[in-house]
């Protein structure tokens, strides 16, 4: 197993054995611990001192199902904190097949230089000139790169937003069909990649240098047992294949926790038009695909292909968070408009969540009407054009709020909240406030506790513990490459045992169940250490004031978890 160190200043790639201090790490654990060790906490996120780390999970590239998440880490230009954002697609498996534990992109290319990092099926890596691709959108770029290097390649790339280095820029990843519709969206990591002068990473998927498996027989048994647990789980085995993540539109609106009209209501008028149920009906009527394999080794198939009235591809995959940000927050209830906005964001290389919320803040500031789809499309197009307003919008909702001097900006540490209002799901508010990476739902989503009847979403009791436990679990899961949407099988006895057995069989270890949360705690501690050294304190672990003061209909509740309780979130011994 090896590291590739890509020095953009010198234009050179160096291969090294995995340093001892990083042994046994993968995914988010590796990106966060490398960033904490090697990146000066107070550095300019868009300068030469920042590093961008690409790390497949510990199980990526093996036969273990749904382990195709690639972690990308750096200091974030959006939040100023440490950041890990992970994407599906094919890149994590491709790197795993080549025995590459991490790619560390260092330094900074001379201004205006643009390169591609190409890794062939033998693992030979080189930086190649990419001036011909300057300004290109992710879709056309991916098509050209696959024509040049062959279809059996995985691609990570930035669009115009990344080249412009705006703070909501994403890194797009190709799916199994070679479309750049998967994203490491959060935290503005596309801007870091753009600042390095790196337009794309192109990796052959046919590598045969994967790390050894200590006990292949036991590993194979564990793979089968875990796959059965994923299929047997009602969420990953039934609901997600049928409706995708959009199946959450109904539950969250039914709970009154769907932040709508820039988080002034908890139920969107006409939300049924955006529901997973209605989306599946539209896709079926038009001849699209309600279920689809988006990522390598996926057995959940939550992806979809949304098509227009003529049956022509519009986007893949239309996801819950995008439907919320571009629909709920903006008041747009036309799925065709939302699909167009999703495609634009993927092509321009923008986080759909931050961008949708930035559009909503613009509307709330009175610069466009809620529900105006054409205005929203025009705003997003302006990012690619590099207009003055486009750059403001591309820097996310906080930049828009500052520009218009508008107070209602739903961000924590500069990053927008997700599709769960903290007043209607108090535990998600704890996660938004305390997560080391700004408001981030995947770091600790507590919705399962509410819908499972274990916790009252509207009261303070139990929310900190629920958030803490979920944040620890997710930090561990994010080390392995396992997709969040398959990870719920871990909560079943069969799934949990199979997962632990697979980890031990892969690495020849004899870890018990406590090793998994211990891994999560180690990661969070490293992330918090980096943030503390960057100047963040507990005062930064707070929600915006309006969540404490403006009641959210229909419950008319505010966020009620106390600061003292928030500050106990990472008291791990409790």
């Amino acid at each position, binding site marked *: 197993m090896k590291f590739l160190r890509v020095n953009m200043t010198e234009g050179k790639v160096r291969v090294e054995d995995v340093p001892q201090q990083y042994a046994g790490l993968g995914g988010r654990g590796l990106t966060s611990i490398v960033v904490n060790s090697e990146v000066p906490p107070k550095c300019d996120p868009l300068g030469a001192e920042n590093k961008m780390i690409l790390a497949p999970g510990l199980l990526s590239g093996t036969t273990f199902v749904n382990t195709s998440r690639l972690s990308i880490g750096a200091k974030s230009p959006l939040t100023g904190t440490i950041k890990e954002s992970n994407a599906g697609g094919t890149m994590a498996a491709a790197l795993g097949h080549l025995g590459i534990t991490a790619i560390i992109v260092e330094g900074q290319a001379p201004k205006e230089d643009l390169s591609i990092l190409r890794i062939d099926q033998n693992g030979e890596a080189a930086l190649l000139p990419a001036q011909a691709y300057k300004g290109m959108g992710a879709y056309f770029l991916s098509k050209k790169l696959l024509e040049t290097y062959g279809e059996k390649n995985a691609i990570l790339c930035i669009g115009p937003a990344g080249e412009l280095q705006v703070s909501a820029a994403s890194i797009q990843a190709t799916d199994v069909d070679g479309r750049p519709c998967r994203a490491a969206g959060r935290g503005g990591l596309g801007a870091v990649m753009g600042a390095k002068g790196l337009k794309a990473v192109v990796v052959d998927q046919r590598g045969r240098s994967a790390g050894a498996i200590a006990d292949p027989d036991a590993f194979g048994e564990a793979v089968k047992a875990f796959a059965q647990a994923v299929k047997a789980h009602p969420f990953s085995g039934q609901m997600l294949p049928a409706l995708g993540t959009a*199946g959450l539109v109904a539950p969250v609106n039914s*709970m009154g926790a769907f932040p709508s009209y820039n988080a002034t209501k908890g139920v969107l008028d006409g939300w049924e038009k955006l529901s997973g*149920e209605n989306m599946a009906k539209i896709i079926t009527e038009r001849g699209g695909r309600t279920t689809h394999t988006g990522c390598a080794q996926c057995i959940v198939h939550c992806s979809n292909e949304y098509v227009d009235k003529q049956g022509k591809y519009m986007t893949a995959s239309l996801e819950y968070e995008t439907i919320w940000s571009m629909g709920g927050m903006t008041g747009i209830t036309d799925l065709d408009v939302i699909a167009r906005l999703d495609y634009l964001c993927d092509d321009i290389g923008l986080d759909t969540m931050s961008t949708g919320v930035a559009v909503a803040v613009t509307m709330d500031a009175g610069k466009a009407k809620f529900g105006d789809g054409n205005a929203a499309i025009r705003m997003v197009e302006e990012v690619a054009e590099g207009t003055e307003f486009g750059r403001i919008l591309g820097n996310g909702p906080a930049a828009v709020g500052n520009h218009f001097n508008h107070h209602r900006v739903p961000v924590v540490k500069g990053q927008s909240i997700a599709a769960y209002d903290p007043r209607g799901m108090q535990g998600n508010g704890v996660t938004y406030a305390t997560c080391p990476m700004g408001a981030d739902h995947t770091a600790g989503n507590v*919705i399962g506790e509410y*819908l499972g009847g274990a916790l009252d979403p509207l009261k303070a009791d139990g929310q900190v513990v629920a958030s803490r436990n979920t944040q620890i679990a997710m930090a561990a899961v994010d080390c392995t490459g396992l997709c969040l*949407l398959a990870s719920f099988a871990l909560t079943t006895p069969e799934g949990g045992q199979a997962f632990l057995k697979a980890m031990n069989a892969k690495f020849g270890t004899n870890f018990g169940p406590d090793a998994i949360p211990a891994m999560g705690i180690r990661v969070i501690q490293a992330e918090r250490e980096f943030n503390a050294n960057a100047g963040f304190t507990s005062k930064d672990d707070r929600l915006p004031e309006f969540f404490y003061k403006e009641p959210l209909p229909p419950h008319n509740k505010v966020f009620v978890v106390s600061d003292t309780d928030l500050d106990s979130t990472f008291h791990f011994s409790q």
Partner: protein
Amino acid sequence: MRVRVKLFGTLSLRFPGHDPAGVLEVDVPDQAKVGDLLALLGITQVENVVAAVEGILLKTEDLLKEGTTVHLLQAAYGG
């Protein structure tokens, strides 16, 4: 008494001919609880179905009211 039921997720597939966008009108005994409604619809506890009315999640022992619209949801864990 009669309650109105909206089915979400894949629940509507259990009722052949039911329009997923439509409403089921269900007659339940007076003083019926959420658990009674689920049992009447053949939904067992292990299926992790939860009821919501006007933005509030209900427990199986909560009483139903005449004419209320109940959303029946499958447990979901995030996305």
